[in-house]
């Protein structure tokens, strides 16, 4: 997992050398801007790989074998790109991603926004590992939402797609309220500070000509703060990867696939295994 890319900061917020310290997988690292370039180094001053994508800075303690995953929608004209600041959460980075993949909690955690009783049913949807891209995908996910987005007026059934291209990053596509033929894109980039603390960097690529940037960020921050109340109260803090520790249902197919995918790749930073 050390060889994966991880988000570590907002691209427009990296000071000049000596820069700023942060933590990646328990290791102190430093980010700084030098000669117009964003750079990163570890505690010994060793250079770390850096890539800037989707308004964020990504690095790795190892050697990434691939460039950062593609979000084709990030190239589409007419979209607004909204980095939503960050939310620090005292939970496993993997639990934060799993929560992002979950829709069944909407009526209870994001009440009257992303869900509301009695509209609690999660219909059957499709999940698979796309072998070529090596990504977890869930499609044909449908859910009734009272206020699906800042620009939404009234309740509607929303369709979602989810993808997991990296162990601590996920991108979702959902029905765009103002442009039904297009998808809004919302991503969560999670920085693992330690196995039980992380920073979530939400990012969006929307068709929304009316809402102010501040309102869009505020909406997304509200959603993530509601999630934090859950994430900091899950026991154990680490994500159990072996079946039997927790009881899933059909609504959890994405979470089940995510856990299997993590385990098959030995992506276990922030996870709990049987042997423990």
């Amino acid at each position, binding site marked *: 997992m050390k060889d994966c890319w991880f988000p570590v900061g907002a691209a427009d917020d990296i000071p000049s050398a000596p820069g700023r310290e942060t933590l990646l997988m328990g290791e102190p690292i430093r980010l700084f801007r030098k000669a117009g370039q964003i750079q990163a180094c570890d505690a010994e001053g060793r250079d770390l790989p850096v890539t800037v994508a989707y308004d964020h800075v990504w690095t790795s303690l190892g050697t990434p074998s691939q460039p950062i995953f593609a979000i084709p929608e990030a190239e589409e004209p007419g979209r607004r790109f909204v980095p939503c600041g960050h939310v620090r959460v005292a939970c496993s980075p993997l639990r934060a991603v799993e929560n992002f993949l979950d829709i069944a*909690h909407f009526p*209870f955690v994001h009440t009257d926004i992303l869900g509301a*009783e009695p509209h609690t049913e999660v219909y059957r949807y499709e999940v698979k590992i796309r072998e070529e891209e090596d990504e977890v995908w869930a499609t044909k996910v449908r859910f009734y939402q009272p206020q699906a987005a800042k620009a939404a007026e009234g309740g509607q059934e929303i369709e979602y797609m989810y993808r997991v291209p990296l162990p601590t990053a996920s991108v979702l596509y959902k029905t765009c309220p103002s442009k039904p033929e297009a998808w809004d894109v919302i991503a969560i980039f999670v920085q693992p500070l330690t196995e039980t603390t992380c920073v979530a960097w939400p990012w969006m690529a929307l068709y929304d000509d009316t809402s102010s940037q501040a309102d869009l960020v505020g909406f997304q921050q509200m959603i993530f703060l509601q999630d934090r109340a859950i994430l900091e109260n899950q026991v154990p803090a680490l994500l159990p990867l072996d079946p039997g520790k927790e009881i899933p249902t059909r609504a959890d197919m994405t979470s089940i696939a995510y856990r299997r995918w993590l385990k098959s790749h030995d992506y276990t930073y922030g996870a709990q295994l049987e042997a423990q």
Partner: protein
Amino acid sequence: MTDTPRTPSQGTPPQWTPVALSRDLAPATAIPVIAEGTELALWRGRSGRLAAWHDRCPHRGMRLSQGFVRDDMLSCLYHGWRYDLEGQCRKIPAHPELEPNKAICVPAWSVTEATGIIWVSETGSGAPPDTGALAPLRSLTVERSEDALRDHLGDGVVIEFDGLHLLLQGLPQGRCVLHALTGPGLDAAGQRAASHRLEALRTRFEDSEDIA
């Protein structure tokens, strides 16, 4: 969880732990408590009945003490899984037509309420100590371990000290709850005075170098 409270030396083998005063748990509410190092969700249904369970939803590990009570069911805050007073899952809102599998249940402790005090026990054998006509005053947490306090206060179940009757509930990490009772029939002024004595006691314990 490292601290395991000692068994009272008077030797009542079935151990009941006082975890709350009845008045501090209103109908249709849930709170987290700790007994013998185990985190429990203590809750009261609308009917007034009590339950004490492992504080963890079997689905995704969410603390059930953060949940919400409707009628005599406790719902997990995360996905609304609904459990009856026996700890059996009765409803999974994501699948409204589904009858939840019988295997989905939360491990429960015994819980009982007597003379204004709520007690829990893992085994449930025997009865909790009888506090007779003593009147519950209030509960308060001290930053000292149960063992350290007992070295100072003595080892009974109900400890008489400075005009107060104290029940001890050991917590992990060197903390302990004192559930204070008074003699019966105290008026408001008497209760205020007793409450001040209890706070003074906490300050004295926490300031004392003898009580580590």
